[in-house]
């Protein structure tokens, strides 16, 4: 499709792509290797590129000394709840944006984009005050509500792209066969869109799982911390314990990488479909 490739061109291509693969994977490899070294060998010379003996000390320490199990549970609950509700709500708004014409549509899309352009720190102070008054500080429910709102704008735009890829004819047929509009949405459209919905959920989940500044602001109590908040506590201390730090980083990254691996094809499609059409 793009002409024949010379032997030299092929070599350059393979070299470059291999080099970039190595560059991409190395930091992930390195944090993993560090996490399996015993605390003594992390800070010793020469630096070893392979742990001479695997040690789980860093991991056990995380659960023994820091309440890492609690943080993981908090993150899991909040990200799952917020991801699910945000996906459901965005599905409704994405559906009307894809299938209906109405005058304020441009304004709605603009409102979604503006949320991405303004630095979040402007909102943190008032948000904290509002949540204090609502008695939702240090509450998993409160943070979940905020995360739902954070996920909605982008998730809506993403899902709208998936809706638009499905021909209207599908619903028309269902409606002619006696389905109501809602029936057509739930029985015909949503099953077809399942991969896109799963991708949107995973995207939301990972964003909530990774979110730092809001949870630092709204979750003060040790029992309410999410994983990124705990990590922030680790790097704020004067002497960073890189052993536990790397173990914690691996435990944070691993679930998101597994989820992304499952959904990467659909996420890529969701992100690029709008940008390259036409």
């Amino acid at each position: 499709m793009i002409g024949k490739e010379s032997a030299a061109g092929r070599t350059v291509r393979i070299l470059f792509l291999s080099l970039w693969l190595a560059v991409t994977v190395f930091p992930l490899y390195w944090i993993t290797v560090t996490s399996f070294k015993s605390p003594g060998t992390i800070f010793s010379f020469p630096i070893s590129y392979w742990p001479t003996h695997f040690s789980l000390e860093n991991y056990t320490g995380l659960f023994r000394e820091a309440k890492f199990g609690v943080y993981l549970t908090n993150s899991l609950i909040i990200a799952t709840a917020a991801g699910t509700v945000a996906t459901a709500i965005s599905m409704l708004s994405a559906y009307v944006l894809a299938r209906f014409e109405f005058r304020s549509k441009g304004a709605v899309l603009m409102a979604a984009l503006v949320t991405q352009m303004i630095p979040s720190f402007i909102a943190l102070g008032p948000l904290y005050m509002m949540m204090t008054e609502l008695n939702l500080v240090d509450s998993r429910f409160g943070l979940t509500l905020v995360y739902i709102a954070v996920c909605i704008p982008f998730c809506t735009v993403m899902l709208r792209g998936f809706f638009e890829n499905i021909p209207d004819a599908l619903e028309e047929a269902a409606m002619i066969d006696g389905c109501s509009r809602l029936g057509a949405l739930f029985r015909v459209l949503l099953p077809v869109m399942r991969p896109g919905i799963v991708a949107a959920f995973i995207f939301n989940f990972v964003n909530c799982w990774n979110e730092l500044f809001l949870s630092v602001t709204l979750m003060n109590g040790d029992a309410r911390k999410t994983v990124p908040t705990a990590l922030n506590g680790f790097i704020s201390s004067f002497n960073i314990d890189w052993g536990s730090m790397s173990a914690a980083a691996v435990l944070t990254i691993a679930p998101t990488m597994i989820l992304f691996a499952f959904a990467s094809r659909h996420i890529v499609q969701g992100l690029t479909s709008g940008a390259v059409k036409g």
Partner: protein
Amino acid sequence: MKEPVAFPSARPEGEPGGTPTPTTCSTDAAVGARPDVGPDAGTGLRAGAGGRGSTAASTSAPTAPRPRRPVFTGRQGLTVAAFMAPAALFVAVFIYYPMIAGSQMAFRNWNLNDLTDTSWVGLKNFREIFTDPVFGTVLSNTGIWVVGSIVPQFVIGFAIALWLRRRFRFRGLYQALIFFPWAISGFLIGILFRWMFNSEFGVVNDLLEKAGLINEPIPWLADPKTAMVAVLIANIWYGVTFFAIMILAALQSIPDEIYEAAEIDGAGKVRTLFQITIPSIRGTLSLTVLLRVIWIFNFPDLIFAMTGGGPSNETHIVTTWMITVTQQGDYGRASAIGLIVVAMLLVFSVFHLTATREKSATGGRPTTGGKRATGRNPRTRKTKGTVS
């Protein structure tokens, strides 16, 4: 990922995040590619939305996969309102309300350390920022941060995309692997690289010493001269994937026939690249760059985790500076910085859109006419049949 939900997680999300709304289409592409959609009600509205000249409008200009007539009739207004209500409620309460409340703090004396006097002070906060000696450093750092990240990300991403067009075994696996950084938050990337750039036990120094490039360890993050280099390397590593993926998708939309024709006409590799490939995907390229600039500008997470803005403010960009000021409790001044960021991004967006528009106007693309017509005439949207 990652990224792209930038508010208020300040991420990309982008990453993929942050971000930006990668589900986008440039106005010219949306309208120009479908010259046959004139009478369609939907397209009129879409063109209008895309033509208002702001980033928001253009980046969100929707893409109908085909001309569409309104399928649904009847009580549409009610349905639309009912379906939009939950989303609107959440976003209004938890995003727009705090954002607006926060913006007005910029014009007030609002300091957590002393809340007895929160009176209106006009532009005092802005004056203080502009006269702060740190502000100059922060501005030039922000420039270096944005340009120094975007240019290498773009070049490397473009190269990867070009080379990934050719099918090879394990291409899917390869793409999945280089996609991985996207699942990680900017904050964690900062932690990863902070450890690798550690001056004593960091692997970067060790590798450079093994390669014989340096004789003694470099205190990367402690030295004002090298700290910015280190955070840039981390950010380039993080962002290449986004460009690679967006550009690859755009490249795959170019029909093969064009390349065949070019080959028959005897065009060489370089010429094909500059006269066919790049012009064909100019819309995507320009939009991707715009979104990334906005996103990287608004992306303090990585620097926050790696250096916290230090040493001696040498890695402070506008948004990390805002974090520091917030942490000091001076919400008024922090909000003022935030509004300055918004103003800078708006100016940049308008400038960027105007510049790329002129370029494509002289580039002889047949789509130009349609795009400009809609671009200059936002009223078109009102003339089409729409339901409120």
